[in-house]
């Protein structure tokens, strides 16, 4: 391999010895720590109200209550949840009144609602009277209205819940105006494959990870930008290109070694930052929640996944996006004439600008899908209902993005190699 491994070792050495390396690591660790711990310190936990305890202790107490009803959302569980809510609302002692109106007391919430919290939140969404109050964001579906559907549910809903859940998901599909007929069909197929009864558990760790995942993934992209921008351009900037490009392995093995290092750095950045953060969230909140169906969090989602599967798919998406971004940065680094600065500027713009562009599906399906291919968008938890249609064949977006990312990574890597080999000194 013409000293490939030795050269790769030296390329790692160059990265590790640059001043940007410790800076990137410190910033990254800082963001990871802030993301993990701020999720706890900024969280609101029912047991913290009126008790002089830490947020962590409050979260642990909340969790212990929720875990009492972990398991499948059977008709019996739904029934108990409806009854518990009915018992609560029938007793005025559970409420206090102030100038703003009547409010539920925290101890009543802990006693009647918290043990069934995932189920009751699900019921409020599935049986919401006005679907315009539903807001879908990342994996979550939030009900923004004041009306609590569970207050008017009777025991009969316990029996029909699974069928009602599917009806709700189907209704969400038909409300989506931008979908084609084939996409609707595909969504309905997916909804049919959702296994019921759903599984419920405490999923605070997964929820916190999902909430923090976008900022963590952007951190990965910026880390890659900082570490890989000088990959080729530093040779031009420091004028070492003259001596390396005229050596036997300067245009072959060295180029391959640099691209290999770019791939490894991108991959490791994604795996370590996302993996360690994920682990951090789970260690803080507990490892429960992996088996929870997405529909418990977002009943409007068509995909039959658990939270663990969804997080794994997202994790792989971040890895693919990071490797693609690494190859893109390597290409830009090889393409510039001299300095590293334009690579950093262009990389930053490429990361930031697509975040602020949003085109509704109903306006332009093509542009809507195209934007998903930018690394900064492909790292979003995206289990929406659109599919990528090519010559009448529907492709699942995340799988298609992985495939396209792999192809683009190979293309950018080849173009980086061509640019470096053809670089003219002076």
């Amino acid at each position, binding site marked *: 391999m*013409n*000293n490939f491994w*030795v*050269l790769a070792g*030296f390329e790692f*050495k*160059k990265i590790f*010895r*640059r001043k940007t390396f410790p800076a990137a690591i410190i910033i990254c660790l800082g963001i990871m720590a802030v993301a993990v711990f701020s999720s706890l310190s900024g969280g609101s936990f029912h047991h913290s109200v009126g008790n002089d305890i830490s947020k962590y202790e409050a979260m642990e107490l909340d969790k212990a209550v929720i875990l009492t009803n972990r398991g499948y959302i059977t008709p019996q569980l739904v029934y108990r949840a409806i009854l518990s809510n009915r018992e609560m609302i029938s007793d005025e002692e559970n409420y206090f009144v102030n100038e703003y109106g009547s409010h539920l007391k925290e101890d009543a919430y802990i006693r009647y609602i918290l043990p069934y919290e995932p189920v009751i939140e699900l019921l409020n969404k599935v049986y919401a009277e006005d679907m315009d109050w539903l807001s879908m964001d990342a994996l979550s579906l939030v009900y923004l209205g004041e009306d609590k559907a569970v207050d008017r549910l009777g025991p009969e809903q316990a029996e029909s819940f699974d069928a009602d859940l599917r009806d709700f998901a189907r209704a969400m599909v038909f409300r989506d105006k931008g979908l084609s007929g084939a996409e609707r069909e595909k969504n309905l197929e997916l909804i049919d494959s959702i296994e019921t009864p759903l599984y419920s558990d405490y999923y605070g760790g997964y929820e916190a990870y999902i909430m923090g995942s976008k900022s963590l993934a952007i951190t990965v992209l910026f880390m890659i930008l900082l570490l890989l921008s000088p990959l080729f351009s530093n040779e031009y*900037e*420091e*004028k*070492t*290109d*003259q*001596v*390396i*490009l*005229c*050596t*036997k*392995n*300067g*245009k*072959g*093995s*060295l180029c391959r070694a640099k691209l290999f290092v770019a791939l490894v750095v991108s991959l490791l950045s994604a795996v370590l930052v996302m993996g360690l953060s994920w682990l951090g969230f789970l260690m803080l909140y507990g490892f429960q929640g992996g088996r929870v169906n997405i529909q418990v969090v977002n009943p409007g989602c068509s995909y039959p996944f658990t939270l663990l599967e969804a997080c794994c798919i997202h994790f792989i998406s971040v890895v693919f996006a990071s490797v693609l971004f690494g190859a893109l940065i390597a290409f830009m680094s090889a393409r510039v004439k001299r300095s590293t600065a334009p690579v950093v500027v262009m990389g930053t713009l490429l990361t930031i600008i697509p975040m602020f562009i949003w085109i509704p599906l109903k306006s332009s399906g093509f542009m809507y899908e195209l934007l998903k291919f930018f690394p900064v968008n492909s790292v979003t938890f995206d289990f929406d209902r659109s599919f990528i249609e090519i010559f009448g064949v529907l492709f699942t977006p995340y799988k298609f993005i992985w495939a396209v990312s792999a192809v683009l990574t190979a293309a950018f890597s080849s173009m980086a190699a061509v640019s470096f080999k*053809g670089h*003219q*000194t*002076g």
Partner: protein
Amino acid sequence: MELRIDRVSKQYKNKLAVDRVSMNLHEGVYGLLGENGAGKTSLIRMVCGVLKPTGGSISFDGLDVGDEEYRALLGYLPQDFGYYPEFSAQDFMYYMASLKGLNRAGARARTRELLELVSLNEVAKKKIKTFSGGMKQRLGIAQSLLNDPKLLVLDEPTAGLDPKERVRFRNLIARLGQNRIVLLSTHIVSDVEHIAGRILLMKEGRLLHQGSLEEITQVIQGKVFECLTNEEGVQALTGRCPIINYRSEGDKVFLRFVCEGEPPAGAEEVPAGLEDLYLYCFSESERYE
């Protein structure tokens, strides 16, 4: 062993840096002389394959400049190149050795040998950022020799070296030229005069003269004079002839100059040297400071 440069040109946007230069080089030391902007560095970069010619071809024993085998036979010390400041001299040499295709054992042995040759063995493990300009230059020379090149291209190799080191390196380069082609580009005429078997004089992208010292200086033999004169004599000559040397000696001035026409009275013809030719060729534009 032959380096064939065949009608090589390099055109930048609006400047022709090298204009159809042709030459065939064989074993020995070749001194490439020329003023700034004459096209020396462009020519050297094209010979080293780091700059693409606009026209013409370069080959070494039939190997094209773009071939990996060509690069395997090449050693290059650029005029102004960077080092990795955080690397030690030893690391840098190992890195260059792996780029040049040496195996681990070969890299270690050759690094030790060459760092000793350039007197950097004591500081082999020190970071390059702590090195002086001269030390960096010596490291540059050492790296260019790592693969025992058959074609050694040195751009200003003695720049930054003190006189003692310069003489040492001159001798080393002369020795290296015994079984390889050494192409040496420099501004220091005495370096070329001492070690180059053949001299290549470039001006405005063209090869003006080439040959041995004796052959090349034939151009101005009989045109170099020395005289002892006064200020009026100096005034009369300045602007008419290129002054090679000017030295005050009491109330008189010693002058060495090149004169194509009738020399002033009292001037004595002396044998021409390379410096005379260089100044003669390159002072036309400044006629004659």
